[in-house]
């Protein structure tokens, strides 16, 4: 009879092994976290070669080098570097520093001033371009990595710093002389010096360029609210910038209420001698959707969606507006003009 215990013991042992011992959950969690860390470490090591410092003054003999300047990202191995327009404002050249320590002079190829982008070109070999990702599908809560040179702390080494955070919201609109449309709001710490630097998803693909932050009180540092220009907007202008053509933001020429009043947006006023007036838009038209220019159709569920849609499209884009006029649906084609500079 003693032998009959052996298969029972073996069975019990096998089942216990599969089921797990009490500490299995925590061990498994630690393994999962360690592999996540290894993924982050690998990503940052790989992506560093595509992230550059722009215009940072190399530090001095002693003390903490807190200098001005910004960051940038290599978008083409031929030597094209993308950064914010405000990082290189008023300059035709900038010093670009690579993570291997090389410092090279770059010249500004073209700008999208209102969109806050500037394209630089460097003469250098062995450049690694960032891989482009997908910015329209970003989900709030999705983890992202911001890389750049906050406070110029990279100093002589030009090695970028990385911060981890999440997408706080998408479709953020910030008006002003530089318009951020369909911007990605993030909570990854972004400080002065990070401007122009890349925002990556956790597969290491470029999804945006960090450019603005909200600040609290008199401080100018991160409080957990940063904004990035989405890649899908950048792709609308990148070819023009590479060809040396400055880009301007699109302009329609209508006034509408920014408070929601039913579906779509009601045109309050069509400004004279504008693309809107030339296309025959009228006050009272209710704009329901915008499409064209290489981006998907945007349903105007709230007025800010129209502000967003118009602000990401460059001047010259032909768009189709689905609207409701006197109870009937119609589609109007408009070629966006140049946004008047304030």
């Amino acid at each position: 009879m003693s032998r009959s215990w052996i298969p029972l013991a073996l069975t019990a042992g096998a089942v216990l092994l599969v089921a797990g011992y009490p500490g299995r959950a925590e061990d498994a969690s630690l393994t999962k976290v360690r592999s996540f860390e290894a993924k982050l470490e690998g990503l940052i090591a790989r992506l560093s070669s595509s992230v550059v410092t722009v215009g940072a003054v190399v530090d001095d003999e002693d003390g903490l080098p807190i200098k001005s300047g910004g960051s940038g990202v290599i978008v083409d191995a031929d030597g094209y570097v993308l950064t914010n327009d405000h990082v290189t404002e008023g300059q035709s050249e900038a010093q670009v520093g690579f993570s291997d320590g090389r410092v090279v002079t770059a010249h500004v190829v073209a700008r999208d001033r209102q969109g806050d982008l500037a394209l630089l070109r460097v003469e250098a070999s062995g450049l690694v371009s960032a891989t482009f990702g997908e910015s329209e599908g970003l989900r709030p809560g999705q983890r992202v990595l911001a890389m750049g040179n906050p406070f110029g702390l990279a100093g002589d080494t030009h090695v970028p710093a990385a911060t981890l955070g999440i997408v706080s919201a998408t479709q953020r609109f910030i008006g002003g002389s530089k318009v951020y449309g369909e911007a990605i709001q993030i909570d990854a710490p972004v400080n002065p010096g990070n401007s122009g630097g890349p925002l990556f998803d956790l597969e290491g693909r470029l999804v945006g360029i960090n450019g603005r932050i909200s600040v609290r009180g008199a401080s100018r540092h991160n409080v957990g609210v940063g904004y990035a220009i989405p890649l899908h907007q950048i792709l609308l202008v990148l070819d023009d910038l590479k060809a040396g053509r400055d880009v301007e933001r699109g302009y329609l020429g209508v006034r509408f209420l920014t408070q929601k009043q039913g579906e779509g947006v009601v045109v309050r006023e069509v400004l004279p001698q504008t693309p809107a007036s030339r296309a025959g838009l009228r006050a009272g038209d209710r704009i329901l959707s915008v499409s064209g220019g290489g981006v998907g159709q945007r349903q105007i569920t709230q007025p800010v969606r129209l502000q967003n849609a118009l602000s990401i499209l460059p001047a010259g884009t032909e768009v189709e507006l689905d609207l409701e006029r006197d109870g009937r649906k119609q589609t109007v084609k408009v070629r966006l003009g140049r946004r008047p500079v304030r």
Partner: protein
Amino acid sequence: MRAPVGGALVCGLAALVLAGWGARANPPASPDAALARILPAALERGAGCLVRIQGPTGRVRSGVAISASTVVTCLSTLDALGPDELSVHIGERRLPARLAGRDLRLRVVALEVEGAEPGSPLEPARPAAPGRLCLALGACFGEPTATFGMVSAVDRFQGRAYQVDAYVDAANYGGPCLDVEGKLLGLVVHVDDRLGERSGVAFAIPIQRVLAILPRLQAGEVLEPAWLGGRVPRLGGGEGVTLRSVAAGGPLARAGLEARDVIVSLGGRPTPTRQAFRDAQLDLVAGQRVELEFLRGGLRRKVVVTCARKPH
């Protein structure tokens, strides 16, 4: 044949029970779920080395019990609490603490504590690379608090510190920075007010560096940054760095060096670039004697230089 049927029933029941157990013990399939389980445990484990330091007015700051009798904290703790009448809360007890040594390069301060019992041994973490996740602890609220972040860069702050993006403020300065296992990565230090508080840019001295200077701190030494008194140009290099100028009366001048001499090695470390020359000076302390090799007129020479303190 009752016995096998009975046995099968028992096994079936056991299978159901174990299936339930298995479901609860399911490994998490997302890093976030895994972190949610791991971090509280890491905090609990690593909080063993966290101590609260109190000044004469009752104001508190954080520190790390690095040995049975020594607590380390950062320089800003002394600025906030003063150097005298300090006490340390370890467990339920409040013990007097006496200022011992300081390292002005790393901004680390050691306090000797009387009457402390040996706690659990310190568990240093393996050195970090950017991407490593971490917790910055604080002792100022009476119970341990922690913020979560990632190592952003290494060899920062003149090559000495980890840069981390955890939100850190006066509650954390001087306290431990732990990894996800609760092991000690480093000591959080306050570096510059211009970086702001809770801005996502913070520094931690790697624990290996702190342990390396600990005996000198325990002996009460004050370690100041070494100054050599020579300027080298930013760009260029080759076999060594060329001295652009030498401060009169400075260590290099007193060792006989002159402008246009090419420094080839310092302390046995080759110095082909300004960065390498800087790196070679990192571990030097004011008052230290260090060997220097240089070229003049094609001839290689060796001298011993006595590092000085930086003049005001």
